[in-house]
């Protein structure tokens, strides 16, 4: 019976997982992280575009995080990696310390911390966000 419930849990996880990545975005699994700081450092250094957000791009759990996703879509920034910080409370707290930033979402471009929703919104309104994405070479041609 234990084996059966474990199998069911695995199946459920597998079907949930298949919705987590999608066209244009890649899910980073933080459910089993043993060295949070090392893990965060690694994904920041390895990702061209990294978004720490609440929820997923298909189902944001916060208006601010949703804004960040919409901004990336609007400027045609594709294949970004994202972390759903609701998934792991330790990662949620460690990322705030790592970035020295108390809120989500948080966007990194080529290891550089860009900011959260307010900064993206201010830059979008004054026209500098497009330049920023182009400067980092993350705008998709298609």
């Amino acid at each position, binding site marked *: 019976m234990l084996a059966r419930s474990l199998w069911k849990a695995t199946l459920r996880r597998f079907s949930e997982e298949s919705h987590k990545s999608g066209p244009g975005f890649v899910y980073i699994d933080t459910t089993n992280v043993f060295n949070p700081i090392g893990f965060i450092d690694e994904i920041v250094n390895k990702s061209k575009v990294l978004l720490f957000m609440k929820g997923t791009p298909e189902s944001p759990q916060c208006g601010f995080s949703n804004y960040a996703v919409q901004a990336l879509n609007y400027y045609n920034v594709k294949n970004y990696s994202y972390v759903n910080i609701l998934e792991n409370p330790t990662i949620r707290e460690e990322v705030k310390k790592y970035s020295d930033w108390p809120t989500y979402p948080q966007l990194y471009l080529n290891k550089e911390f860009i900011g*959260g929703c307010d900064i993206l919104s201010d830059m979008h309104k004054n026209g500098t966000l497009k330049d920023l994405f182009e400067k980092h070479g993350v705008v998709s041609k298609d």
Partner: protein
Amino acid sequence: MIMRFLSKRIEEVLRVKFTPEVLEVVNESQLHDKGENSHFKILIVSDAFKNKSLVQRHREVNSSLKEFWDNGVHSISVHAKTLEENTGRIPKSPYCKNK
């Protein structure tokens, strides 16, 4: 710490630190589900922000409000501009309730 009149207290701290030309502190907690004093929006215009990046400005505002972060404030939305950059419009915040 008494949580009343939080907007006013936030205003006082920011006035002392940045001597802003324009300062608006709006309690937006009613847009969210985390209590009465959880979410604030700040528009602050001051030349103290000259030559500072948006991230730097935001960090300075956040650290000046450290006592509020430590006491239950969940989110502070910051729009920090210099006099030259100020258009006079307060940006609208995203709506979050029931998420």
